[in-house]
């Protein structure tokens, strides 16, 4: 997986790309989140539109990221989950844990 962070005025959008399977990606993401928190940026939208595959380790990484942002006093919201990813979130009941939005714009606006 790769990810790209883009700053908006009220939040940071992190776009995931590829296969989300935790492991070394979780370390890189955690470092990025702490860099953002240290810079006073505590609200993040994860754009999942380019995610091809996600397994339980990837879900664990997403949960870890959510916990990191909430512990810092911010939040992590998700946008553009494909049907496949949404189904995974429903099966694991994580759909109730994340605030999720059908579009990136809606997710960004939710932080206004």
């Amino acid at each position, binding site marked *: 997986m790769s990810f790209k962070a883009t700053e908006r005025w009220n939040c940071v959008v992190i776009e995931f790309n590829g296969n989300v*399977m935790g492991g070394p990606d979780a370390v890189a993401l955690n470092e990025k989140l702490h860099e953002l928190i240290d810079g006073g940026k505590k609200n993040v939208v994860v754009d999942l539109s380019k995610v091809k595959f996600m*397994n*339980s380790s990837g879900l*664990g990484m997403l*949960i*870890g990221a959510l*916990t990191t942002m909430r512990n810092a006093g911010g939040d992590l919201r998700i946008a553009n989950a494909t049907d496949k990813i949404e189904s995974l979130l429903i*099966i*694991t009941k994580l759909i109730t*844990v994340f605030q999720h939005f059908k579009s990136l714009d809606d997710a960004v606006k939710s932080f206004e």
Partner: protein
Amino acid sequence: MSKPKTHTLRVHATTANIAAVRDFVASHAEAHGFNTEDIDRIRLAVDEAYTNVIKHAYDFDESQWVSIEVKTDPRTIHVVISDSGRSFNPDGYQEPNIEERIKMRKRGGVGVFLIHKLMDEVEYRKQGSLNEIVLTKHL
């Protein structure tokens, strides 16, 4: 109607082979007539089962082997994943409370839960020194 068929892939127990294992099973599921949603479910269940072998049966020892056998009969696909490592005790498995795990900041434990949710039947077998998990999906 397809005739019963068996296809086998044998790979080292490494995460480098995860995509090949997923694709091997998915290609046979597709050829057998499963729809995209079911193929995605089978693909994810196989990913979780293979990953569990790497982590828990072999403790990331990449010199070990995993065998993936796909058996199809007219209405069903069976995926048999075999290893010779530490056995998984299904009797000791309890369905996790995922929200509780999140509150307690615990990771893991979700893979087996997902496998059971994604497949129609899941069976654990012991064949001599081999551990087998049999994942079954009906058309």
